């Protein structure tokens, strides 16, 4: 076993050495230069943020600017990463000429108390806030948090290097890892990179095309065969699969990487799927990762009662390939709609908490309806024995009641949020 792993490591290192280095050294024609464009309004010396946007393109040379205003760009820790000067935007200074041969200047100054100004700045990942000060009075004129613009940009261009780097940074932020953790990160990242390279090589050899977008699915199962089959099926669908052979291994993995979806087997030793699920949902860093339960066992009324709020879907083995990928696609689509709509909701001025509450209710209602339909399916063994399951009936009734009350809450929130969207001219999301 250890020898096998050593051989695998050597192969991975060899692949990295042979393939990554030369590829990385070849300069590509890609141009990812971006600028941050902030539009400000001013009225009687008061400045306000009108809009901000990150776009592809070059920026002006800030080093040559001068004037009584000072712009300061800070990172997330509040440290200055760039400063620049600029003129008061309300003043236009000009000259006419007079005299017999136009020897003297006649000044012409136009002062505006209201108008707009733009800041076009070279975009860097570290940027967090842009502030404008009047050096004459020392007062802060306006400050803009650029993260919403960054989020919106990454919704459109998720695979731009600045967006992929941001995603990596987000998953690795937190307490500084110790050497052991770093080694684990390096090792796991090597495996991931090697996996991608292997996948690319295999596809190239087979003459198969490359997927344009890949999302990571963590498959947790104590059966290597299931991992292999599920991974193979999902890889064919364009997903990037990583595996953990048990509950604890899954939790260890989540310390260093956050997948887009977790497929979690229930019957595992020593830490079963439900206990693993509890740990995942207890941890603030992992609780938002959608979990799809995968099991050969029937969903019991007790499990449904305890865990229905923690799961995104429930699939029974044996399952069809389409069933599995459709469930994952639905989860990811829901996540994407939420992400995109949240960004627009911010623009529309919708209260974030209310919006997230509606999104959570919508997910819960949809999952609970599915759980109800699973529970409502007749149990052949019980039918054959002429028995009924009172607990099951009770749970179904609870879930139905619960779902109906959530639907009422949903309708109220939906109407309020839809109105806010429509007011600002945005199309409301479909829930």
């Amino acid at each position, binding site marked *: 076993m250890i020898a096998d792993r050593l051989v695998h490591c050597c192969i991975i290192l060899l692949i990295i050495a042979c393939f990554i280095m030369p590829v990385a050294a070849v300069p590509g*024609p890609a*141009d990812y230069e971006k*600028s941050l464009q902030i539009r*400000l309004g001013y009225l009687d010396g008061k400045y306000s943020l009108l809009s901000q946007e990150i776009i*592809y*393109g070059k*920026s*002006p*040379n*800030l*080093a*040559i*600017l001068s*004037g009584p205003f000072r712009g300061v760009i800070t990172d997330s820790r509040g440290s200055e990463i760039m400063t*620049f000067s*600029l*003129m*008061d935007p309300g*003043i*236009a*200074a*000009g*000259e*006419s*000429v*007079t005299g017999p041969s136009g*020897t*003297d*200047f006649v*000044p*012409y*100054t*136009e002062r505006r108390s209201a108008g*707009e100004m*733009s*800041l*076009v*700045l070279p975009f860097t990942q570290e940027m967090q806030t842009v502030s404008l000060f009047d050096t*004459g009075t020392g007062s802060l004129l306006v400050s803009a948090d650029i993260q919403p613009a960054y989020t919106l940009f990454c919704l459109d*261009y*998720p*695979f*731009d290097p600045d967006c992929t780097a941001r995603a990596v940074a987000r998953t690795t932020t937190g307490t500084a890892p110790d050497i052991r953790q770093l080694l684990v990160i390096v090792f796991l990242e090597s495996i991931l990179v090697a996996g991608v390279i292997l996948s690319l090589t295999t596809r190239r050899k087979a003459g*198969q*095309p490359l*997927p*344009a*977008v890949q999302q990571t699915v963590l498959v947790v199962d104590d059966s290597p*065969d*299931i991992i*292999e089959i599920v991974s*193979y*099926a999902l890889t*064919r669908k*364009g997903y990037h699969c990583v595996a953990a052979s048990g509950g604890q291994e899954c939790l260890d993995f989540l310390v260093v990487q956050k997948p887009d979806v977790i497929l979690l087997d229930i019957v595992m030793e020593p830490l079963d799927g439900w206990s693993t699920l509890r740990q995942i949902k207890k941890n603030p860093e992992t609780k938002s990762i959608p979990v799809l339960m995968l099991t050969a066992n029937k969903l019991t009324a007790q499990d449904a009662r305890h865990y229905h709020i923690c799961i995104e879907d429930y699939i029974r*083995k044996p399952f*069809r*390939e389409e069933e599995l990928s459709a469930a994952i*696609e639905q989860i990811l*689509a829901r996540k994407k709609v939420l992400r995109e709509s949240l960004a627009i909701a911010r623009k529309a001025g919708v209260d974030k908490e209310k919006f997230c509450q509606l999104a959570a209710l919508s997910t819960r209602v949809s999952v609970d309806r599915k759980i109800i339909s699973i529970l409502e399916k007749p149990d052949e063994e019980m039918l054959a024995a002429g028995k009924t399951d009172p607990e099951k009936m009770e749970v179904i009734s609870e879930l139905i009641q619960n779902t109906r009350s959530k639907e009422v809450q949903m309708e109220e929130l939906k109407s309020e949020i839809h109105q806010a969207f429509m007011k600002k001219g945005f199309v409301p999301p479909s829930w």
Partner: protein
Amino acid sequence: MNPYTHNPGQDSRSWTFQICSRNRVCIILLMFVLASPAAAALSDRSLLIAVTDAETGSGLAAASVYIDGRFAGETSAADIPGTLRTDDPQQGSHMIRITAPGYQSLSKKVIFPDESVVRIGLTRNHLVSLNPENKNPHTISIIFIPSSTYYRTSDNSKVRTDTYSGNETRLREDVTRVISAVFNNLDRVTDPAEPLPADFRDRFTFYYYFDPALTADAFSGCAGFVPPDYWNSVTFSDLTIILYPRYEGWYTNASSQPVGCFMNSGTGHSQLKIPADRDLLFLHEIGHGLFGLVDTYCGETDYFQNDPYPNVWSTLDACRAGATADNRDPSRCRRIEQDVPDSISCRKNFWSWDPDPDLMKTTNSGTFGRASTERIAYILTRSGMGSP
């Protein structure tokens, strides 16, 4: 037990998985079946991107294609020119961005597989580089945009003209002459005691923007008006110069429009207007617009101490201290003031050092004095640093 069974009536992908334990043969067999030509054929879905010149409709080869922000390749020069096929993209919406030299880049959202063939027409770039050979990465980008108006003092009116908007050659000739007479001559109008960087001419990149349908108006407001669409295509502009062919006559009364004017509406949004035939006034205006110099004549203009390396100080002591520090004669510091005939005397609480004739004071002759030159040299040196 067979690890999987094929349900009759379903396609090759509709396998029902029956999980067996530790049967490697099953896996291998499954892989063979799933990788069969039939399965491959079913998954053969691709997105074809066809990039054309919007005007001529001909295919554009070597255009860079980005999908969702990731570089996907360049459009083909062979086979079907201007196309790029990307295989097996994920279903859903994708943002496609196309860039091509000489064309305006374009982003378009497509939904795959609803749109499996995407045609994108790129519009030619209206921006013409005048010194493309300059590969200096940190330069000062100066863009000339033609005005569709000029001014006449005899009746104080702006007059429409197609001198530039209808004649790209004339625009190019006038821009080229101005560059040669003004920018390339900076070493002749500055004080040699404060030498400019030896390669100062390479610190500029010049462009003109020519689109007959999109011109500026030099006489809408002091510094003129530039259409908003212009700014979107020149995000890197350090200074936009609205060039108009002539200013007829001299200032007659307060209703006359200014000949030249500068305004800064933020980074990337600096603009000045100037006629093509008044080089000294041109130098005075770029003194403001490019080098941050302040007027040294006395009048109703905007004064401030333009640190660092100012040419105007807010106190006499500051002026003297600056002069001493720079080995200039501090006794030359003088107040900005002027006796205006038949009027009240003009007197400001600001001081200057540069001797007359000073280009920031008078329009018919003179040079930039040593203090102004020091600031010009400072800005030119900083231009090489890029963004601070």
